[in-house]
């Protein structure tokens, strides 16, 4: 065999070895891909199966809720009248009155009365407390009391110089009773102290008042 033939054989062997090396590792990678895709397809199948009834159930829930909204809006408008109903909604959710009621087209154009002029203050307070209810937390704009722009606390800003804005400038309430830091002994005569703070007795034996005695 000539030298050229040997070199030819070596070259062919090298090419075949390279082919085998790379193709084996490619097969390994493709098998991993196949395994992963099998798991993916199984999971996607589960997703499809689990989400299949969601549309129908949600549609039913929405239909029930729509019926409830329709009934409540109708009852509110029937009993309170359109202006007061809009005023009540606007009082509970500022700005919501402009949207009006869903089943009453054009109700958003109703001029909402100032709610405080329509209802007593107690009713308005109760209505505002109702905003803390869980059903109010489901408002599309979130819980009102957690919103500084719409919360009842915004009304306190009308009087910025009172306690809620500058608590550090107001004296604390006095402590009274047995836990008070300054204790006063009961007097024997009305308006006369037995002792001045840090002084001796103020009454002499014959009952005359000491010069330092003070009236309370």
């Amino acid at each position, binding site marked *: 065999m*000539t030298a*050229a*033939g040997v*070199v*030819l054989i070596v*070259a*062919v062997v*090298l*090419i075949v070895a*390279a*082919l085998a*090396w*790379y*193709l084996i*590792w*490619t097969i390994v*990678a*493709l098998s*991993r*891909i196949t395994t*992963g*895709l099998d*798991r*993916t397809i199984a*999971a*996607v199948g*589960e*997703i499809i199966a*689990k*989400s299949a*009834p*969601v549309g129908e*159930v*949600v549609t*039913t*829930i929405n239909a*029930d*809720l729509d*019926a*409830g909204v329709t*009934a*409540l809006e109708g*009852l509110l*408008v*029937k*009993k*309170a*009248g359109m202006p*007061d109903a809009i005023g009540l909604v606007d009082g509970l959710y500022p700005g919501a009155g402009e949207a009006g009621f869903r089943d009453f087209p054009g109700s958003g154009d109703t001029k909402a009365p100032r709610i405080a002029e329509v209802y007593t203050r107690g009713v308005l307070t109760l209505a505002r407390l109702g905003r803390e209810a869980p059903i109010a937390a489901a408002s599309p704009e979130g819980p009102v009391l957690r919103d500084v722009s719409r919360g009842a606390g915004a009304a306190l800003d009308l009087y910025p110089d009172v306690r809620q804005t500058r608590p550090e400038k107001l004296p604390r309430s006095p402590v009274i009773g047995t836990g008070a830091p300054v204790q006063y002994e009961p007097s024997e005569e009305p308006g006369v102290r037995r002792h001045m703070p840090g002084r001796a007795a103020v009454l002499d034996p014959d009952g005359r008042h000491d010069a330092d005695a003070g009236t309370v």
Partner: protein
Amino acid sequence: MTLYWIGDAVLLLVVLPVVVYLLHGVLGAARSIVPSVEAISAAAQAGSKDLDATALLLTTQDQATRTVAGVANYGGSLDVILDDAEEAQS
């Protein structure tokens, strides 16, 4: 004989590098797909697990139906108890 040597040179200097280059590219592409497929598989399994709660929608549906029925009952009673706006004004 000279043609044999030329053929050997072509095999070693041209064919072998080209084969190695092409196979290396194929192997690299196949290996790059594996992490993506595994990530997709993990995401799909997590999504499937998240959807386990969809069965509770049936409970939600039942609760919503009963709540609306209760609201309707209360509304009917209020409709009887309270005067209508026009009647109250008159």
